[in-house]
C-alpha cells in the first residue's frame, strides 16, 4: 500500500496501480479515453492529465498522464489544479474539432463516454473556425455500424481488436488528423469478438447495427440481468427491451466469467426473441392440420386430458432451465423422463459432468483460464463451440509477457511497453484438432489428427508425464510433439487441459481428465475445462445424474414407440434424431404436446402447443460448463398467452395432483425444491437472491430514472396508462422506482452513475477498477474440488485407420449456425451458411467434386443426406466434417463411417469457378 495525496487529501491506495485507476477506484472523477481496465494504458488521448508535485515545496507541479503514472508512497497530485483542468478541457476541445454535431441522431447518445467526458471537463464553446474532416464509412457486416466521422482517435478499437482479440482486419490507417479506423476494404469484420467494439469505442463510431436500425434511446431501454443462452459458457449479459422487443444485449461484468467482453454469438444472438414466427397463443391442431388458438385455461384442459392416458412420457431440454426440467420430471416421473439429448450428445454431456465432478483438478472459470501458463486443447474447436473461452485463451498465452515485464519492473497496465518487450513470446498453447482452428496463430503447435488419434496423443502425453506401459503414439513426429507438450505442461504452474463434447468423443475427454489428474499428482495447480454443447447441458446432466441405464435415450424411446402422450419441453426433436427417428415420432406418439417459444419442426407436428416465454421474458437457472449456476431474469413480461415453461408445467403438476409440487407456487419455491431434492444442484438457490430481496427496502428498478415516454408508448391505443406489470417472482420491478444501490451482482439490470452514463460507469459498481462487483459476483459454483485423481490408466485407444472409400464423420461447429436459437437471430442468419460437408482436396479429387458441388452421404443407417462440398486442405485425411447443428445434418453422428458420392442432381448455389480460383475453407 502507498499513501498519496490528491488535492490536499490523503489516501491509502494500492502500490503500483496507475493514478487513473486509483482515482476511479477512489470514486474521483478523472476523465479518460484510451485507457481501458482490461487493456491497460498507452497514453494516447492525454485526457487523464493531472498535476504532480515533486515535494512539499513544489508549488508549480508538472502535468503527467494519470494512466501512465504509477502511484508510489508520498506522491502528491492535484486533479483540480488550474493547469490540469485547463489542459483536460482543451483536450476535449481538440477532440471536438472534427467531431460532428451528431448527438441528436447518434446511436451512442445518452450512453456516450465522449458526452460524459465533455461535460466532466466543462468544455462548451469552440474557438476553432476551420472545416471539419470527414470520412467515408464502411460496410462492416450485419453486426456493426460504422460512422467514422465520430472518431476521436483513441485507438481503443484497434488495441482491442488486434492486440486483445487477435483480429487482423481492422487497423489504424493514414496519419496525422486523417487517421482512419477500418478495414482495407468494405466487408464483414472477421473476428468472432468484433461486437465488443460497440462497448469499447467511447463514441458512436462502432455501434450495434441492429440497435441503429430499430433505434431506441438507450435510456429508454428496460433492462434485466440475464445469462447468455447461446452456448455453455454462460456469459452474463444485460438484455435491453423497448416496445416488447429485445433491442440489444450488452455485457454484464462478472469478474469470474466474462469480465468485460462477450462473443458475437451471444451479443447478436438474441434476435430470435423478436421473431414474428414466435408462438403467442396455445394452439390446438385440427384434423385438417391447421391450428386453433386457445386461451390458456382451455389449453391446460386439453393437456390434462391427454395426460390421463396410460403411457405418458416427457422430453426435457439442455436449453431449458433447471427448474423447468425439474418440474417436467416431477410431472411424469423419473422413469418416463428423457433428458432430450441426441445419441451423440448424451454420452458426452453426462461423461463431461462426471469427469468434472470427480476431478481433483480445478475446473476453471474464464478468469482462471486466463491465468493458465500452459494449455493443451485436445480436440475441441473452442472458438466455435465456446467462443468466449477462445478470447480468454488469447490472454492466457500472454502471461509470460507479463512475467518478462515483471523482470524489468514494468507494471501490468503498461500495455504497449509489455507488448514491445515480449513481442511474440507466448506461453505454450498446443492444439490438436481435425483441422486448422482460429487459435492457431497463437499456438506453439497445432496438429491435425482424427478424433481417435487425438485421444491417442493425449495418452502419449500421459505416458511422458507418468511413464507406464510405453504407450507411445507410434509416429515419431507425434511422439516428439507429445514429449514437448508434456515438458511444457510439467514446467507450468497452472497448466490447463481443455477438451469437450465438440467431437462427441468421450475418450478424448477422459484422456484430458487423466492428464489433469496426472498434473495434479505432480503437485501443480492443474485445471481441467470441458466445453459443452448448450446453455444448460451441465445443469441437465447434474439433474439427470449418472448411471447409463437410468438416463433414457430419446431416439430409442421414439423408435420403440408406443407412447400415448409425449410432452416436449423447449426442444426441437428433429435436431436430436435421425431422419427416420423423427418420422417415427409422429407415428409412435398418439398425442404430442410441445412447450416452446419458437415455431420448430416439432411444434408443427404437435397436437397441442403451449407457447413459452423466452429467456428474455422469464426467469430460470442455468448451469454453465464449469458448474456455475446462474439466474436470468425477465427484461419484460411475456406478451399474450406466453408463459414461462415453469408456469405451464407447475399448473399441469398442480392439476395432476403431483404431491411434490403441491406446496410450490412461486418460481423461488421450485428452485428450492429442486435444490433440496437433488444434492448435486443444492447450490442453485445461491445463484441469485430470492424474490423477497430488497435493497434499502426497495426493489431493483429495470428502468433508469431517465426512462421516458411511458404514456406515449401506448398512446396510439389508449391515453390511459395502465398499471405497470407487477413482478411477483423476482426482486426486480418493471419501473423506474426503486434502488439500484448496493445491488448484488446477480441483480444488476444496468450500469449508471451520476456523470457516467455509458458503460464506463461500471467502475462505480466494482470494489476497485477491474475487481469484482461490490454487490458480489453473480452465480454460485456447484462443483468444488471433491474428486480424487484416479491414476489408473485407460488403455491406449485404438489408432484411427482411414478406410478405402469411406469417411469418418466429425462434427464441424460454426459460431454462427451451430447453435439453434442464436442462428435464428436475423443479423446472425446473414452470417450462417447452408449445411456443408468438408472434405480434403484429395477426397475431392477422388470424388470428382469441387467446392459448391453436392455429395450424397450414406451408410446402412443414413439415407437421403445431401450436402454441399467445402474443400478444407487442413482437414485430416480419412475424415469428413459436417456442419453440426445445421438443418441438413441433423441425425449425422460423430464417428460414423459413411460413403460419399457425387450428387448428380445438385444445384450449385454459385457457378463453378475455374480450378485456379479454388480456395480452401475460410
Amino acid at each position, binding site marked *: 500500500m502507498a499513501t498519496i495525496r490528491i488535492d490536499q487529501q490523503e489516501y491509502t491506495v494500492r502500490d503500483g496501480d496507475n493514478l487513473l485507476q486509483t482515482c476511479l477506484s477512489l470514486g474521483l472523477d478523472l476523465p479518460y479515453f484510451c485507457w481501458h481496465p482490461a487493456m491497460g494504458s498507452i497514453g494516447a488521448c*492525454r485526457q487523464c492529465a493531472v498535476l504532480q508535485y515533486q515535494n512539499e515545496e513544489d508549488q508549480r507541479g*508538472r*502535468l*503527467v498522464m494519470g494512466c501512465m503514472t504509477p502511484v508510489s508512497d508520498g506522491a502528491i497530485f492535484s486533479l483540480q489544479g488550474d493547469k490540469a483542468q485547463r489542459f483536460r478541457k482543451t483536450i476535449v476541445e*481538440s*477532440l471536438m474539432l472534427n467531431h460532428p454535431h451528431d448527438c441528436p441522431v447518434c446511436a451512442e447518445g445518452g450512453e456516450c463516454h465522449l458526452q460524459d467526458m465533455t461535460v466532466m471537463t466543462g468544455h462548451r464553446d469552440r*474557438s476553432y473556425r476551420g472545416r471539419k474532416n470527414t470520412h467515408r464509412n464502411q460496410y462492416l457486416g450485419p453486426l456493426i455500424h460504422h460512422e467514422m466521422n465520430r472518431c476521436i482517435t483513441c485507438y481503443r478499437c484497434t488495441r482491442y481488436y488486434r492486440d486483445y482479440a487477435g483480429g487482423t482486419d481492422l487497423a*489504424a490507417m493514414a496519419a*496525422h488528423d486523417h487517421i482512419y479506423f477500418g478495414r482495407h476494404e468494405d466487408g464483414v469484420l472477421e473476428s468472432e469478438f468484433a461486437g465488443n467494439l460497440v462497448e469499447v469505442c467511447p463514441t458512436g463510431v462502432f455501434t450495434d447495427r441492429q440497435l441503429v436500425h430499430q433505434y431506441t434511446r438507450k435510456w429508454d431501454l428496460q433492462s434485466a440481468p440475464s445469462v447468455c443462452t447461446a452456448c455453455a459458457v454462460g456469459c452474463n449479459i444485460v438484455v435491453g427491451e423497448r416496445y416488447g422487443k429485445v433491442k440489444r444485449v450488452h455485457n454484464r461484468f462478472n469478474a469470474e466469467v466474462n469480465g468485460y467482453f462477450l462473443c458475437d454469438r451471444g451479443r447478436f444472438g438474441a434476435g430470435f426473441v423478436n421473431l414474428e414466427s414466435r408462438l403467442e397463443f396455445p394452439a390446438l391442431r385440427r384434423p385438417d392440420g391447421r391450428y386453433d388458438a386457445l386461451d390458456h385455461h382451455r389449453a391446460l384442459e386439453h393437456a390434462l386430458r391427454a395426460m390421463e392416458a396410460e403411457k405418458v412420457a416427457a422430453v426435457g431440454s439442455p436449453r431449458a432451465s433447471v427448474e423447468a426440467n425439474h418440474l417436467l420430471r416431477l410431472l411424469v416421473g423419473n422413469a418416463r423422463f428423457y433428458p432430450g439429448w441426441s445419441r451423440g450428445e448424451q454420452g458426452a454431456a453426462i461423461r463431461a459432468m462426471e469427469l468434472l465432478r470427480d476431478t481433483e483438478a480445478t475446473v476453471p472459470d474464464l478468469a482462471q483460464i486466463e491465468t493458465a501458463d500452459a494449455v493443451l486443447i485436445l480436440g475441441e474447436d473452442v472458438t466455435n463451440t465456446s467462443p468466449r473461452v477462445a478470447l480468454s485463451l488469447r490472454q492466457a498465452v500472454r502471461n509470460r509477457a507479463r512475467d518478462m515485464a515483471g523482470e524489468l519492473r514494468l507494471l501490468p497496465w503498461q500495455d504497449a511497453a509489455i507488448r514491445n*518487450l515480449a513481442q511474440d513470446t507466448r506461453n505454450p498453447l498446443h492444439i490438436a484438432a481435425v483441422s486448422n482452428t482460429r487459435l492457431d496463430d497463437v499456438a506453439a503447435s497445432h496438429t491435425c489428427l482424427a478424433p481417435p488419434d487425438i485421444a491417442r496423443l493425449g495418452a502419449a502425453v500421459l505416458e511422458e508425464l507418468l511413464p507406464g506401459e510405453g504407450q507411445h503414439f507410434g509416429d515419431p513426429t507425434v511422439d516428439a510433439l507429445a514429449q514437448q507438450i508434456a515438458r511444457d505442461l510439467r514446467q507450468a504452474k497452472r497448466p490447463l487441459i481443455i477438451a469437450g463434447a465438440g467431437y462427441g468423443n468421450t475418450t478424448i475427454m477422459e484422456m484430458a481428465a487423466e492428464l489433469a489428474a496426472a498434473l495434479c499428482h505432480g503437485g501443480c495447480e492443474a485445471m481441467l475445462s470441458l466445453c459443452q454443447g448448450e446453455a444448460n447441458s451441465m445443469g441437465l446432466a447434474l439433474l439427470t445424474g449418472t448411471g447409463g441405464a437410468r438416463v433414457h435415450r430419446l431416439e430409442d424411446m421414439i423408435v420403440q414407440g408406443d407412447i400415448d402422450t409425449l410432452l416436449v419441453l423447449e426442444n426441437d426433436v428433429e435436431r436430436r434424431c435421425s431422419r427416420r427417428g423423427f418420422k417415427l415420432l409422429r407415428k409412435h406418439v398418439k398425442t404430442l404436446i410441445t412447450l416452446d417459444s419458437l415455431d420448430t419442426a416439432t411444434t408443427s407436428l404437435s397436437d397441442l402447443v403451449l407457447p413459452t416465454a423466452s429467456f428474455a421474458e422469464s426467469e430460470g437457472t442455468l448451469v454453465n460448463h464449469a458448474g456455475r449456476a446462474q439466474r436470468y431474469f425477465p427484461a419484460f413480461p411475456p406478451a399474450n398467452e406466453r408463459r414461462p415453461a415453469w408456469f405451464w408445467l407447475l399448473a399441469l403438476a398442480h392439476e395432476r395432483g403431483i404431491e411434490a409440487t403441491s406446496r410450490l407456487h412461486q418460481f423461488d419455491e421450485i428452485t428450492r425444491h429442486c435444490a433440496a431434492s437433488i444434492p448435486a444442484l443444492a447450490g442453485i438457490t445461491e445463484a441469485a437472491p430470492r424474490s423477497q430481496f430488497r435493497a434499502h427496502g426497495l426493489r431493483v428498478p429495470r428502468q433508469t430514472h431517465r426512462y421516458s415516454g411511458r404514456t406515449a408508448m401506448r398512446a396510439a391505443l389508449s391515453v390511459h396508462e395502465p398499471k405497470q406489470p407487477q413482478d411477483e417472482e423476482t426482486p426486480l420491478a418493471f419501473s423506474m422506482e426503486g434502488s439500484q444501490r448496493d445491488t448484488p451482482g446477480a441483480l444488476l439490470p444496468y450500469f449508471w452513475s451520476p456523470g457516467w452514463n455509458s458503460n464506463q460507469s461500471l467502475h462505480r459498481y466494482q470494489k476497485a477498477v477491474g475487481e469484482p462487483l461490490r454487490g458480489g459476483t453473480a452465480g454460485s459454483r456447484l462443483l468444488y474440488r471433491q474428486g480424487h485423481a484416479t491414476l489408473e490408466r485407460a488403455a491406449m485407444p485404438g489408432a484411427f485407420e482411414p478406410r478405402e472409400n469411406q469417411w469418418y464423420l466429425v462434427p464441424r461447429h460454426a459460431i454462427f449456425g451451430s447453435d439453434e436459437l442464436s442462428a435464428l437471430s436475423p443479423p446472425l442468419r446473414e452470417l450462417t451458411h447452408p449445411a456443408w460437408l468438408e472434405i480434403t482436396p484429395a477426397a475431392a479429387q477422388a470424388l470428382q467434386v469441387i467446392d459448391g458441388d453436392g455429395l450424397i452421404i450414406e451408410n446402412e443407417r443414413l439415407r437421403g443426406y445431401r450436402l454441399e462440398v467445402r474443400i478444407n486442405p487442413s482437414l485430416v485425411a480419412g475424415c469428413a466434417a459436417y456442419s453440426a447443428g445445421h438443418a441438413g445434418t441433423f441425425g449425422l453422428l460423430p464417428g460414423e463411417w459413411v460413403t460419399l458420392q457425387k450428387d448428380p442432381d445438385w444445384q450449385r448455389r454459385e457457378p463453378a469457378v475455374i480450378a485456379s480460383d479454388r480456395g480452401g475453407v475460410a
Partner: protein
Amino acid sequence: MDRPLTRNIHADRRPIDLRGYRDNGGYEGLRVGLGLSPADCLQRIKDSNLRGRGGAGFPTGLKWSFVPMGEDCSPGHKYLICNADEMEPGTFKDRLLLECDPHQLIEGMILAAYTIGADVAYIFIRSEYHIAAQRLREGIVDCEREGLLGDNIQGSGYSLHMHVHASAGRYICGEETALISSLEGKRANPRAKPPFPQVSGLWGRPTIVNNVETLSNIAHIIERGPQWFNDLGLTEDAGTKMYGVSGRVKNPGCWELPMGTPIRTVLEEYAGGMADGYELRGFLPGGGSTDFLTADHLDLAMDYDTIGKAGSRLGTGTLIVLDDATCPVGFVKNLMDFFAQESCGFCTPCRDGLPWSAQVLDDIENGQGKPEDLDTLERQVEFIGAIGNTHCALAPGAMEPLQSALKYFRADFEAHINQGCCPWKARQ
C-alpha cells in the same frame, strides 16, 4: 584546423571507397578499438564528452552505459541503429557525411556496436537518400569481403551484421522509438519511456539509436583519444560540429567547424552574410523545430548549453535564416503545416492541436485573423508546447518557432490582424 569528419570530403563531393578510406588511415580506429575491451571503449566515449548530434545533445557515453552488459543482459540480440532519417526542416548535414564518407560511419558503427555488445546493426535511412543508401550498401559488401564486417571481425572473435533499411519516409520516423516501431514493420508511433530502448528497444531487445554525425565521430575518438576530442571544441562542448545555413544568405552550405563557433562566424564568414538587399530578422539555430533567435544573439557560441540558455536549442546545428522580405507569420505557418502533416496522429494535442494552430495561422496570414487569435495561439503554445503534454517531442518542437515568433515578431502578427491582410503580400 582539425576537421576529422570531413577530411575525406572533397569539394566536388565524390565518394571515397574502401581502398581510398583505408589509404587515408581509415579503419585504424577499428584496429585500436578491437584491441581494447568494450568497457575501455565506453570509457573513451564517456571521457570524450561527445553529445548526440541528432538534436537533443544527450551524452553518448552515458546513453550507451545503460545497455545491459554481460551477465546483466538476458540472452539474445542487441542492436545498434544509425538514425539517418534526417527530415528536420533545413537540415542536410547527415547527407553529406553519408554520401561522401560512408566508411567513416560504418567504422564508427562497428566500434559502437562492439562497445555495447550488439551483434546486428541497422542504418535507417530516408528513402530519398538513395545515393547514400547505395553507397552504404556497397560499403557494407566491401567490408564483409575484407572481414571488417560479418563473423569474427579481423580475427577478434567479435561478429556484427549490418543492414541498410530505406524508410518509407516520414518525419516521425526520425524519433528514435518511432523509428524502432517502423523498423519492426509497425505504425511509426513513438513509444512511451520508460522502458528506454537501451533496455527494451528493437524487438524488445537492448538497442542504441544514434545519429549519423554522432556515430561518424566514434572511430576518431577511439583512435585519437578523448583528450584530443575535448580539445577540438572552443567551449565546454567537445569536438567539431557540422553547421549549416539556409535562407537568403550569399553562400548557403554546410561546414565542419569547432563546436562552439560563434553564430556570427558561421553566418557571416562561412555563409557570406545576408544576400544583397536583405536584412536579417531572425533565425532558427538548429532546424525547423527550434526557437527563433535574432541579430542580438549573433555573438553566442553555437553549442548546446549556450543556445539553450538563450531560449532556443542547438538542435541539428543548421540555421534557417528569416530575412526582412519574408513574412514571419507565413514562415511559421509553413512550418506548422509541415509539422501538422507529419504528426503521427497518436496523441491528441499534436494530432488535433497542430492543425488547429495551423488553421489559426492560416486565417491570420490570409487577413481573417481576430485579435483573440493571439490568445488562442498562446494557449496552444502552453497546451502543446510543454514537454510531457504530448507523447513525444515532435509537438513541443513544432511549437518552438511559433512560441518564439510570438515573442519576437508579435507586432507582425498584430499588423496582419489589424490590417486584415498580410503586409508582405500587400507590398508586392
